[in-house]
């Protein structure tokens, strides 16, 4: 990767709060024009990292360069060139959509056309509505529009869909994909694996302040995910020893009477089905569950990524 293709370079970044190490010597690069997802559970160090890159926190040690500017020396230059949608975004409740955009544009000395941003995030009907009267999804879309007032090269979106209902979440995803098409580099922090899978070109997984894996979502799943799971609904327990003779592991769920088989190669499904038919063991329907980033995270850390499931 050449220098001019790199939007962000992070080297051995550390942030400590008293005895707590929130970010523990992490290094990674973000390419220009990509959607980079920083994935991890709450408290993993995502927000601390992103706030260091946004120049609103100082690292304890390490180096980070954003668009060629050092975060410790060139704060003003960086702030001019980035857009930020903070976690739990909020703005002035009694200003309208348009007035809020104009306020922040004024802060950057930007002459951006507020109406074009309103159109971009599809808030034309709400142009003169006060912020406090908007729904959660519309508020986040306004947040995205505000993050764009200075026509930034990089957009930092910190948990942009946290707490939103499925419809609002999809609206925000559409807005983010639209921005990628416009050539923006997007640094997305999220604890929703589905969000990372759908949106990201590159995923970096952070856990307890350390980076545990990175790559494209597909490569991460291939490298660290469990193999696919075959679920045989309402199946006799006698299937377990039979399946094990095929060199596969299987578990029996007493409550559901399901047999869960971990597959290890492409032909495993046909082998299992053939063996069951041969021994005349009945089974209900077959379900195939693909491995996800959730499984990757579970595999790497032994912990679940989140309690709440994204839709």
């Amino acid at each position, binding site marked *: 990767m050449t220098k001019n293709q790199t939007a962000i370079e992070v080297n051995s970044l550390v942030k400590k709060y008293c005895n707590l190490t929130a970010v523990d010597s992490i290094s990674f690069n973000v390419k220009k024009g990509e959607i980079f997802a920083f994935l991890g559970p709450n408290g993993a160090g995502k927000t601390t990292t992103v706030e260091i890159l946004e120049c609103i926190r100082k690292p304890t040690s390490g180096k980070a360069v954003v668009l060629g500017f050092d975060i410790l020396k060139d704060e003003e230059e960086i702030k001019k060139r980035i857009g930020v949608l*903070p976690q739990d975004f909020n703005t002035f409740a009694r200003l309208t959509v348009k007035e809020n955009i104009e306020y922040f544009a004024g*802060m950057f000395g930007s002459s951006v056309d507020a109406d074009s941003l309103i159109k971009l995030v599809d808030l034309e009907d709400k142009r003169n509505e006060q912020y406090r009267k908007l729904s959660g999804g519309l508020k986040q879309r306004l947040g995205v529009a505000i993050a764009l007032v200075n026509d930034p090269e990089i957009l930092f979106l910190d948990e942009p869909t946290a707490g939103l209902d499925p419809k609002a979440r999809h609206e925000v995803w559409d807005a983010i994909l639209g921005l990628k098409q416009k050539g923006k580099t997007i640094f997305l922090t999220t604890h929703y694996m589905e969000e990372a899978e759908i949106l990201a070109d590159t995923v970096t997984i952070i856990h307890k302040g350390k980076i545990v894996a990175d790559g494209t979502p597909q490569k991460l799943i291939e490298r660290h995910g469990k193999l696919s799971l075959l679920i045989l609904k309402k199946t006799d327990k006698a299937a377990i020893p039979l399946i094990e003779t095929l060199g596969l592991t299987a578990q029996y769920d007493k409550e559901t009477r399901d047999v869960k088989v971990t597959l290890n190669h492409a032909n495993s499904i046909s082998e299992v089905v053939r063996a069951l038919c041969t021994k005349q063991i009945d089974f209900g329907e077959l379900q195939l569950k693909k491995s996800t980033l959730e499984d990757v995270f579970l595999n790497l850390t032994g912990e679940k990524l989140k309690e709440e499931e994204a839709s």
Partner: protein
Amino acid sequence: MNRTLIDLKASFKMFYRSRTALFWTFAFPCIMIVLFGAIFSGSSTKYDLYIQNQDMVNGNLTALSKGFVDALNLTGAFNIYDLDRTVNATRYAIDHKLSYMIVIPLGFQNNTQQALFPGSALNSTIPFIYDQSQTSAIVVMGIVNGVVNKMNQAYAQQGVLHDYVVVKGETIAPKRLSFMDFFIPGVLGMTAMTSSIFAAVEISGRYRETGIFHKLATTPLKRIEWIFSRTIYQIVICFIGMALIIGIGIAFFNIKVIPDPLSLILVATTSMTFSGFGMILSRFVKDPEAAGAAANAITFPMMFLSGTFIPLEQMPEFLRAIATVLPLTYVNNGLRATMILGETQQAIANVIIIAVLGVTLLLVGAWITKWEEE
């Protein structure tokens, strides 16, 4: 500077759209003035009137003086009290904070009879001792004059129309302040204090809690630019409040208070003092509701202990000692000194105290207000 102006414009817009803020900042002090004014500036329909009747002949009150007192009584406007003939009437009025009283002098009947002689240019006078700063005194004097005019008209039927009896006003010296003259500067100080401290606590707490500080921190807006904008905004709000309060005072209570440069400086520095105080408070009490309660706990007793409602001279000594360490005491003293008493030296001394305090607290507040917690 441009960013400060943008923030200032947005702040006024948001203030204008918040009915609650408008009510508590402007309407509440005005309502309080009207209510207190109605209670304390003697707007009841019956007036307490002290009369010292000195007109005696052979140890008995004269018929005319008794008739005059009866005539006053018949108007139904007064609760009449008889004042001992041996006391000095003016001294008594000052000591007992009476706004007005009548003295019927010795020889009143005799002088009136002489005035009634055809061709006489004499008249008989009734001293009306009053405090010119009290609107009620003017009203009472008008009623007394009405009774005297009726008397003169009755006498005129016997001869030529002439002022046989005259009410002669004698102002009480030294001049004593009316309740409203005393009260209005107190309300100005109180309003500047409460609106500034609560705005600082509320904005700092809310912006921190809702993440607006976080968002502002990602823009080129500097903290000092924002604090400068907030300070100017709050001072302007205090000036608007001041204009409204004085306007109400003039319109309803005939106060003679005109804001002068010293009072404007004092209101501005009061706003700075309590804005800084609010910033410091919200830095240490992070929960906005708790910070609001703490601001209440500080400002509420201060209102009563700093001479806003009751003159410090009327308070017990230990409370007066407490008042000397309360900033609002100096605000109230300074505003009264410059707006009511015209004591410039005293006003300047108070302005200096509040200005030093204001600049110090605002700088400390600005210094410790963080947009991001570490």
